[in-house]
């Protein structure tokens, strides 16, 4: 991992107004730098703004204040350079596995010269034999792998993953985590992963960003120095896990501000 910075998030605020006209400070004064090639995890309780932050990086939403730079350039719109894997399934239901994966290439008119990539990615995610299946015919774990392949085929410099394993059982989850590490180690793609699973965060990341809600803020950034490949039962792993859970617990039970009525 180099020390070169890839993503710079500078003093970002994002406030939503909900249907009852209440304002929700989804993000307040977020400052974060993501290094090129690093595996960064964002962790925090529900509603702390993880998805909001990732959407801003993806260019699917704009910050109210502050800015986000990718390699020095301000992010203003979605771009295949920043692959995004959605929290909710977002495969195109009318397209087969193969066509889902090829969709980006076709859209950019580079399908003919990269045709071989499609088969290669299907192989890589272990979906050999499912190329012609439709999304409703494959399992949730498979679908998420297709979603990852669909973005990786565009050779993004950063892959943004919003709880891609949230809805998976333990086995598919461990399987997908290893797949993700394999892809990361092969390509050196910078990974930004949102999760609320402490084990997942330790198993995968170089650094862990802990966020707290109302307003959504970064409370701490933790370096994970464990050697790879990591063992989930390791003493060091367990120590870090305990440490993180304590912080996490503390972070999520911080006193709520009191409002005068």
């Amino acid at each position, binding site marked *: 991992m180099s020390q070169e910075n890839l993503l710079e998030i500078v003093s970002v605020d994002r406030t939503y107004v909900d249907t009852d006209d209440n304002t929700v400070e989804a993000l307040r004064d977020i400052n974060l730098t993501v290094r090129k090639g690093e595996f960064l995890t964002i962790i925090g309780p529900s509603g702390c703004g993880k998805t909001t932050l990732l959407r801003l990086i993806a260019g*699917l939403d704009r910050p109210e204040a502050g800015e986000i730079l990718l390699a020095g350039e301000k992010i203003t719109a979605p*771009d295949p350079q920043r692959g*995004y894997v*959605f929290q909710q*399934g977002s495969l*195109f239901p009318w397209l087969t596995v193969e066509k889902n994966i090829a969709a980006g290439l076709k*859209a950019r008119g580079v399908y003919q010269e990269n045709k071989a990539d499609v088969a290669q990615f299907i192989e890589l995610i272990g979906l050999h034999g499912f190329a012609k299946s439709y999304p409703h015919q494959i399992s949730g774990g498979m679908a998420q792998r297709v979603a990852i392949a669909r973005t990786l085929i565009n050779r993004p410099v950063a892959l943004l993953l919003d709880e891609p394993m949230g809805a998976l059982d333990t086995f598919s989850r461990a399987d997908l985590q290893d797949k993700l590490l394999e892809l990361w180690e092969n390509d050196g793609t910078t990974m930004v992963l949102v999760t609320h699973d402490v084990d997942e965060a330790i198993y995968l990341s170089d650094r862990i960003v802990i966020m707290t809600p109302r307003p959504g803020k970064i409370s701490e950034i933790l370096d994970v120095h464990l050697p790879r490949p990591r063992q989930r039962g390791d003493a060091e792993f367990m120590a870090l896990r305990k440490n993180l859970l304590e912080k996490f617990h503390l972070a999520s039970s911080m006193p709520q501000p009191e409002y005068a009525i």
Partner: protein
Amino acid sequence: MKPIFDIQFMISIVPEILKVVPVTLNITIVSMFFAIIVGLISALVRIYKIPVACQIASTYLSFMRGTPLLVQIYLAYYGIPKILDYAHTYYGWNIDVNGIPAIVFIYFAFTLNVGAYLSETIRAAIQAIDKGQMEAALSIGMTTWQGLRRIIFPQALAVALPSFGNTVISLIKDTSLAFMISVVEMMGQAKILGARGLQFFEVYIVVALIYWIICIIVERTVIRLEKRVKQFERGRSI
């Protein structure tokens, strides 16, 4: 005792009515084709809240839904020649107003009328598609138009299909108004045939049956399409 209606006569006029069925289908298909374009444009303009165009679209919809179809047909029939005549006289447009066949005014009126109803259907269908689909499309490098065409429209079409089928059936029935401006479709033909032997009741029974059969065929087709499309809707949420 004389039978209440003359079956012999009814059978004898079937071929004569069937002869003009293509006119009915022609009005339906041509108007539907242009109505889809009008409906799509006015739906997109409102979804993306494009200034000015959005207000124009809303006014258009409101007018079309708030005035009777027959009035709209007469407006087209008497209005368009007047406007063209004006343009001919004052702007030197070279148009022979009298050379325009009446069916053109029918196309025009039906396109705008059906377009307004389709606009609502199309808008609702597009908005029923998960926003994530468009975002996924954009984030893998599609343009908004590519995302609409390749990802959103096919799914929206599936959602809109039942309502779309109803619109087609209404349109087929409404084509019977075309005879008011002397386009000889089924109703026009019925008037002519009925007047011949003053057997209007028989003629209209035949006409009704033919409309009914056409509408049943359309309905069945739509149901079959819906079944084909349903399989993709079972998509799981991951």
